[in-house]
């Protein structure tokens, strides 16, 4: 292993994941506390959360349509936006971990494993892309 030892490599990835989880959990935590001070977050009828075995679908989407919209809601202190941001960070975390791993493999001139990382990243991107169309 040239330049960067496996030991350092593993430590970098471990720290990165730990840091990401901390940021995400803080954002969700802030949003949760914020939501206690509002009876009706995001115009959403709270009792709808329970769906008492009715299995009925939610009519209102709770997701934000664009990052701009989410960003705006974050700046206004919207509780749901802070929770959503935390969840997004969490979902993006493994994806960024794959990018980071790929970059380290490239730095080590391990082109085969750089290719494998790229393949995993492609699959992950397809997931995001297909989800958008649904």
């Amino acid at each position: 292993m040239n330049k960067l030892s496996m030991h350092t490599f593993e430590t970098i990835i471990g720290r990165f994941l730990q840091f990401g989880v901390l940021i995400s959990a803080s954002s969700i935590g802030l949003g949760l506390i914020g939501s206690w001070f509002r009876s009706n977050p995001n115009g959403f009828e709270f009792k709808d959360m329970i769906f008492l075995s009715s299995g009925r679908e939610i009519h209102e989407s709770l997701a934000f349509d664009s990052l701009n919209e989410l960003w705006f809601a974050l700046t206004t202190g919207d509780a749901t936006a802070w929770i959503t941001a935390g969840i997004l960070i969490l979902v993006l975390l493994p994806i960024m971990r794959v990018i980071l791993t790929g970059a380290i493999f490239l730095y080590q001139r391990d082109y085969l494993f750089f290719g494998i990382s790229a393949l995993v990243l492609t699959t992950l991107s397809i997931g995001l892309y297909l989800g958008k169309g649904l």
Partner: protein
Amino acid sequence: MFGSVPFYAHSIISFELLLVVVSVVAGFVGAIFGLGGGIIIIPFLTLVMGVNIRYAIGASIVSVIATSSGAAASYVRDHITNIRVAMVLEVATTAGALSGALLAGSIPKRTLFLLFSIILLLSAVMMIRKRKEQEILAPEKCDPIAKRLRLNSEYPDQNLGRTISYGVNNVALGSFLMLFAGLISGLLGIGSGALKVPAMDSAMNLPLKVSSATSNFMIGVTAAASAGLYYMNGSILPILAGPVAVGVLIGALLGSHLMPKLDSQKVRYVFVTILLLIAIQMFGRSIGPSYE
């Protein structure tokens, strides 16, 4: 149509606090037995709180990422995780997970309940099976693919007080099994570590500790493949998924710290009994009256 509203639905505080507390317990128990929290959180949300299984799956998949990333940090730091093996197998798990999440929308809810009860049963069997003394594969006897990919490695064994070198076998079979594990993970919103660990320790000859740590490391990426899709199609409700993710994370961190101090044998049988009971309940839901 709705009947009376349960106590926890009267205020957002009681609802969220209940979710967090239950998720802490799920994460704690899951970490002690090496299972994800999803296997407990999904039955709880659907059977007890009456949440639609699609949203329960959405909430669970987020908590799977949280637990994996939270725990991976310490495993990776202890140098037990085999990152190269993880990367190779992630090609298969992500492809499987993506297919699972795509299929989930068109599979009847009854079938999801049925599948879930089968996975619960498998996990229970996994937990009580006798572990025979595992033989470590000498690195020079490994599979040619493993040699070409340089998958053989070593890890510090704290019990034996020395570093163990090991070889990796059956990479192709392992990848195939991972495709299946990923599919189940994407379909049901669980980490499916109960399938990943045996695929690595039985099929690929990885030492048990390396298998668990590497499985935990992979679970996050597997879950992310389907979580992206679930997020985009609106199955992940922030108010449900947020408290669950934070709760499971806290529980998993507590559980992994306490794990070495616990005498787990008795607790194990209690937990297996609980798993079997949940399996029966989930099976009942798959053949019982439909609520749709």
